[in-house]
């Protein structure tokens, strides 16, 4: 992936790259929205067992997803968008799973 970055990086203008950015915003954006909701569910007010909070958490996925998805097109290239989502999700989900105790810290 790194070598492809260097070729597209030289282009200064914002590139449309519809398919890559849509994949980044659709799939990566969804995973990121879910991660934010997950952190909020466990470590936000009330914690994971607060009554009825699961409904609110479920509802919050969509607005976060919509916001992230629509802003993904601001990445200069499609590869950058994909790389960003990949890194942020990998790091974020690892931290989340570690915090939750599913992964060795």
């Amino acid at each position: 992936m790194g070598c492809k970055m260097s070729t597209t990086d030289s282009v200064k203008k914002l590139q449309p790259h519809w398919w890559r950015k849509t994949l980044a915003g659709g799939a990566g954006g969804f995973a990121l929205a879910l991660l934010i909701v997950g952190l909020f569910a466990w470590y936000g007010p009330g914690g994971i067992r607060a009554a009825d909070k699961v409904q609110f958490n479920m509802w919050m996925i969509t607005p976060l997803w919509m916001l992230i998805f629509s802003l993904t097109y601001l990445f200069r290239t499609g590869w950058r968008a994909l790389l960003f989502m990949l890194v942020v999700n990998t790091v974020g989900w690892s931290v989340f799973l570690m915090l939750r105790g599913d992964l060795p810290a």
Partner: protein
Amino acid sequence: MKISSDILRVYKSLHTWVGITSGLLLFIGFYAGALTMFKQPLDRWAAAPLVQLSAADSQQLDSLINEVLQQHPSARQDITVYLKQDESISAPLRWEVHDKQDEHGHGIDLDAQAWHAGFNALGEPVSEPVKQSLLGDLIDQLHRTAGIPGHVGDEQLGILILGVAGLLYALALISGLIILLPTLVKDFFLLRAGKNKKRFWLDAHNVIGITSLPFHLIIAFTVVVFAFHDVFYGTLAKTVYAEVPMFGSRGGAPAVQYDLTELAPVADVIHQVKQAAPAFEVTQLRYMGLEGPRPLIRASIYNPDYLVHGPVTAYTGVHPYTGEVVMKNMIPGEGSDWSGIVMHFFALHFGSFGGDPVRWMYFLLGLSGAFLFYSGNLLWVESRRKKQKRDQPLPQQTRSVRWMAAATVGVCLGCIAAVSAAIAGAKLGHWLSAADINGFYLQVYYGIFFGAVVWAFWRGAARAAVHLLRLCALTTLLIPLSTLAGWLWPPSAIWAHMSVPTLMVDVTALVAGAVFWWAAERAKRRMVTATRDSIWSLQTA
């Protein structure tokens, strides 16, 4: 506000493409959705008069419920007690008998046989099958599926497709906002009705989009959740909650087997609900699963001053045998902060707060949303058409421009005409003695809708716009005309209800019909006066 031209260019393309792919579906969703604001008045308008059965008091009601439950096993699954009656509710008890076991309970079972029960004028208990019009439910179904039939597993295909359209629509809203930001202050509320028709349509598109943006964001957001909540809950369970139960424990108490004769008296149930929710009026009690492990009465409670969970009423649950209120947290103001916030999302989609003024506001917002998609498509067409150059022959418009114009006119105007015809079909179908009125609605709707689309492609957008606007006017005017016919000519067996909500259906249709006729006249004039290279000109069409 300054935004680089790069960003504007990318977001303009994004806005165009997500708009054009979801616009026609969303038009149908919004138009039908606007009508569902007045689902109850429409159902009352469409209800053929039946001999009204009643119950004098709650003791009579108790004995009637007992008798019906003994004699009709299907009523034990699901039966509704109506504490208020109107034209569409002919008796205090109503239930349905389903031929096939509908396991998931999604969608409408058009083959179900409705029954009602009550006391006749002589005070005798009567249980009988009734023909029931599902007009309101079918319009609601059109709203939720855009008329796309079929299922994927347990889900309705149309709902999933509209869920995807809702996501595209969200992208369209945010990208639309971004491309408007640089000129927002300058152009806001500016409607340039000059020679440049495109400028006028663009101004109208922008001003409606911006002023109703909060409404549109709420609708886009809730549509996606309504379509995919099962998927979202499933994903949350797997990835976020893991071993933690999402909905608490369901209570390990062993199911107690009750006998149907041990039902709590209706008066007790109402009393308990009123104790728990003193500000509300109890309007319906729906008894569900009386012989199952979790019997429940879902009580509909009404007070327009509150923001509520349902399209009209709030709900709470009552145990049918003990009379204990079991879902207190669903009563507005009684739940946790979390459920209170979530209730707002439902209410903001349904417009179920503030009573009739808010319903009218939502009706108009729904129609203006439909206009947003219609105008968006026409702007797409307008910015892509080839213009005639000075002293050059008339250019041939591309196929995509001609087809998109035809599809927009056919789908949008076809949907309007088809819905109006189906509504009027409630009375005309009865007059024509249609055996199955709900099947008749569907034939009328799909017949006119597809007819209009075919017509638009065959005759071209310019001519079809005039024809279909006239069709919209005629079918919409049929609504008050059918009432008038019934009133003037009783032998027709067409009814003319005189209650205010049903008369408002006639008045609204009369106004809408006049507007469509005016629009048809404008479109006809435009066909001749439009510049020759316009997609709306006869020369091009």
